[in-house]
């Protein structure tokens, strides 16, 4: 069976610089959760931007539904894949509703405006992302964490099958982080959403994700189930930190640094 979404030996270089991602492959099954981990500068964001179709790989190809991503019409692709960047700059004080409504664009013909159904979907997306209370505000007034929730709601309003998240919880407090994780698990359960997420939160990856892809210097350092990847010596190698320790407790993996 071909996977829903996959990267086949993709590589990327900025301009004429060296390869920052080298021959990375990744398979994403329907209704799955995949974590991408790795040290800063290991090529995680570049990889996810290739998956989102923002960067064209210099070698290899990203495939969606058995077709190369580059052959998809951008608007049709946008109905399947949603991407949430790490940070978004707000140049104008757009209302939160407008930002989330923009997620409906791929579903609306060019010279048509959003209708009541789109607004329903947007309100649901705001609810799912835990951002319903922000609906009446402007994006320029929001904190980084609140902005992340709004960006997530925008991605959900796209009603995609694949959701790509670049460190969605980096600016979230403990409670909102837990809310986000519960929301993602629910979306996978109820909507069959496939989630690919970059994270530094190894604790989360151990309990929620089916697969982990670990990058080091742009190459795959390890790939497999949390049990297989979250091992002390492997993490020590990936992050270059010799004192990483892990312990499996029930279905959770405890990760800590020994002083």
């Amino acid at each position, binding site marked *: 069976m071909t996977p829903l979404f996959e990267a086949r030996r993709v590589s990327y270089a*900025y*301009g004429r610089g060296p390869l920052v991602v080298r021959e990375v492959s990744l398979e994403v099954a329907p209704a799955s959760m995949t974590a991408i981990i790795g040290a800063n500068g290991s090529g995680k964001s570049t990889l996810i931007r290739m998956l*989102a*179709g*923002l960067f064209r790989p210099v070698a290899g190809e990203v495939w969606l539904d058995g077709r190369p991503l580059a052959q998809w*019409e*951008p*608007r*049709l*692709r*946008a109905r399947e*894949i*949603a*991407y949430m*960047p790490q940070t*978004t*700059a*707000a*140049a*104008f*004080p*757009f*209302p939160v*509703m*407008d*930002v989330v409504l*923009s*997620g409906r*664009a*791929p579903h609306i013909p*060019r*010279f048509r*405006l*959003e209708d*009541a159904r789109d*607004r*329903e979907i947007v*309100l649901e997306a*705001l*609810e799912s992302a835990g951002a*319903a209370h922000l*609906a*009446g505000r402007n994006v*320029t007034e929001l904190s980084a964490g609140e902005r992340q929730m709004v*960006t997530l709601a*925008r991605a959900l309003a*796209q009603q995609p099958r694949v959701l790509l998240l670049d460190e969605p919880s980096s600016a979230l407090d403990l409670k909102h982080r837990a809310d986000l994780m519960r929301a993602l698990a629910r979306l996978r359960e109820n909507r069959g959403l496939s989630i690919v997420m970059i994270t530094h939160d190894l604790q989360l990856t151990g309990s929620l994700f089916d697969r982990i892809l670990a990058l080091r210097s742009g190459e795959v350092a390890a790939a497999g189930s949390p049990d297989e990847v979250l091992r002390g010596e492997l993490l020590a190698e990936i992050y270059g930190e010799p004192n990483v320790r892990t312990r499996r407790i029930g279905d959770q993996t405890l990760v800590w640094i020994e002083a």
Partner: protein
Amino acid sequence: MSEKAGTMLAPLRARLMVAMAVLSAMLAAAVGAGLLIGRQHVDFSALFSDPFSRTLFFRLRLPRVLMGMIVGGSLSLAGAALQALFRNPLADPFTLGVTGGGILGASVALALGWSALLFGIPLVFLASFGGALVAVWVVRMISRTGAVMLPGALLLSGVVVNLVSAAAVLTIQYIADPNSALQILRWMIGSLDVVGMTPVWQMLIPLAPAWIALLAFARQLHLVAIDEDTAATLGVDVRRCETAVHLLCALVVGITVSVGGAIGFVGLIVPHAVRMLFGEDLRIVLPGSLLLGAAFLVLADALARTALTAGELPVGALTGLLGGPAFLWLLRRRQQYGVM
């Protein structure tokens, strides 16, 4: 919950209709005022019997008001589009150097005495469009490093393009014969002083399709203004949109400048006024700027015509005097957003 959030922002269709109705009414009022106000009194009851009134109205007053509409609407529409495209509230044809480039192109044409027409289009239009296009291209190249557009570099490169253009225009004036030099100077200040309807038609033929094309990009520009990356993942071909909007803005600004001269800051103030009145959605801001820009310049010109007891104040001087402080005020507000 659903109803509460739903009422926080009226649906776009309703907002768009209110905005268009209000702004059309403002434009109608401005045009009315522009036709009435002037140094010479037009006797409307004798419009068709008295040759003097007729000439005054149809050869001078009406073309001038129409010219104000065309120039004001064009500059404001281009300003709104450039602000969205560069995601910078301080961008406008003037601050990005597009006007400067257009002036240089037109000055070259004026100095060389190109008064010829090409398929009914004055060569000055083409020269000015060419200059504006080069300016846009330079500013775009300098401010973009890789995938990132640096907002500070954007405005600075606009300043530099303006300075270089101004220096080049001075050089041209110095070299050119005194007649051409004076002609360039008078025209550079910016004025809507036209005689007869020919210049109006000459402008409308290339400009009207360019307006329509720019308006057709409203939704894409709306998505780009929210976030460039987001727009790309929402199915917008950002590069194509950028190239098309650059070309269209250079065309609109180039032609506008080649007739009206440097009328500064209209493209900066008007889109902000529309935003304050009707919100940030570009699908309202673009057509709204076209209408309000038209109204604004017609009124500003009426004011400029009658402000001095002796002679007329060039409308470009007036918009510059109003626009400079407005720019500084926006700059101060902008610092509160943080992204600079």
